[in-house]
């Protein structure tokens, strides 16, 4: 996603504030997978992975990896006490049945209504939707972590997605390297600005229409 490690951690740290006690949380690959690093040790939350791990624990140290215990991104993890393994069918049963409280994903575009487009750039990049369609449709809450701008400097928060949609009207929060937005009742609201960005910076780099929260916060 073209962000330095410090910026990636900034996004992950902000997203970690949205993880509440006793939630069941599914994290996408990339920056979302950094979120657990920003939770207090022993924070009571269950990380579910669609490849069939319920209760992912910290990454093992070098030399301690088990090639058959990896997250959905293919990186070694551990399992917490009380965790279990399932097959892919059961992993998605939990997702479609609405047992996942929160999913944190990356995206290519998000519209001001919360439409998510993150599985294909026609003619260019066709990774496939993986588990995103079902996660975004069925998790109780969907948070997107992404750069504010695409590689060409275009706004990724748009009026209408030009890329094919993954799931319609599903995103409730967008955290970029510049700002935090929420989507409430189909309306996009600017809630927080990352230092040193200003209201004007966001206005100049955001295609979508939004309102500025009266309680706007400036954060580091």
């Amino acid at each position, binding site marked *: 996603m073209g962000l330095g490690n410090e910026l990636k951690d900034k996004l992950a740290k902000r997203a970690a504030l949205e993880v509440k006690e006793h939630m069941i949380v599914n994290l996408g690959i990339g920056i979302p997978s950094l979120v657990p690093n920003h939770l207090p040790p022993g924070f009571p939350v269950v990380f579910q992975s669609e490849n069939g791990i319920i209760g992912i624990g910290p990454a093992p140290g070098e030399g301690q990896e088990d090639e058959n215990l990896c997250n959905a991104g293919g990186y070694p993890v551990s399992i917490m006490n009380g965790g279990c393994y399932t*097959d892919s069918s059961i992993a998605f049963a939990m997702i479609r049945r609405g047992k996942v409280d929160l999913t944190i994903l990356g995206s290519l575009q998000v519209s001001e209504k919360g439409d998510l487009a993150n599985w294909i750039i026609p003619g260019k990049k066709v990774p496939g939707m993986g588990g995103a369609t*079902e996660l975004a449709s069925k998790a109780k809450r969907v948070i997107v972590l992404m750069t504010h701008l695409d590689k060409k400097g275009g706004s990724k928060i748009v009026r209408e997605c030009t890329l094919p949609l993954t799931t319609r009207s599903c995103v409730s929060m967008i955290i970029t390297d510049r700002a935090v937005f929420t989507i409430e009742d189909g309306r996009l609201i600017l809630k927080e600005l990352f230092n040193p960005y200003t209201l004007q910076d966001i206005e100049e780099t955001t295609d979508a229409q939004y309102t500025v929260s009266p309680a706007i916060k400036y954060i580091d």
Partner: protein
Amino acid sequence: MSRLHNKRSSYENIKHFFNDGMTLMFGGFGGVGSPPTICKHLLDWGTKDITIIGNDTGFPHIGIGQLVAQYRVKKVIASHIGSNPVAGRLMSEGKLEVEFSPQGILAERIRAGGVGLKGIVTEIGVDDPYLNKGKEILEIDGDRYLYETALVAEVGIVYAQKADTYGNLIYDKSARNTNPLVAMAADITIVEAEEIVDVGELDPEEIVTSGVFVDHIVLSKGVDWKWAWETN
């Protein structure tokens, strides 16, 4: 002497199941839980024009991805090809047909094939112009649903931690993933196991896949690729 027959086989004896133009279903997720030694033999045997069905196309040097990278695959049914750039390139060049299914729907289509059902009915993708293309839409109780067909294959390849000689299986952590589903959905199910034990050695309570679904068992020689997370 067990009353259950011994399905232990050798790579030489399973070779004849793998033919050009075949439909092959495979277990594994990002290569984790894909049977490494069967994949290696498929490369050596030169099997080509294969239709593969499984979660994803792994990496160019890992798991089933190796077959894609060596141009042995004509069609993929999967949820994701992003970790295998060769798959993306062949797709855009028109040399590889790719059918995407959302990951859990794919798992459920395989499971449906494995449990003798014709298909599944879901609201996932019903209004998505890519996912609903050419598919039947059903109206049930006033809501719209997509009919997704079950998937079956001529041969299924499965990775297990332990098999007894009848083919009762237990898996290894996240290497389980699609393996128990694939084990049920193929005409011929071939298991590559890390360890093969005598019948009676596995606790009936811990067996995940019944040997009823398994036709042949071969002993794994282990992973011969380097994982993306391995630094040296």
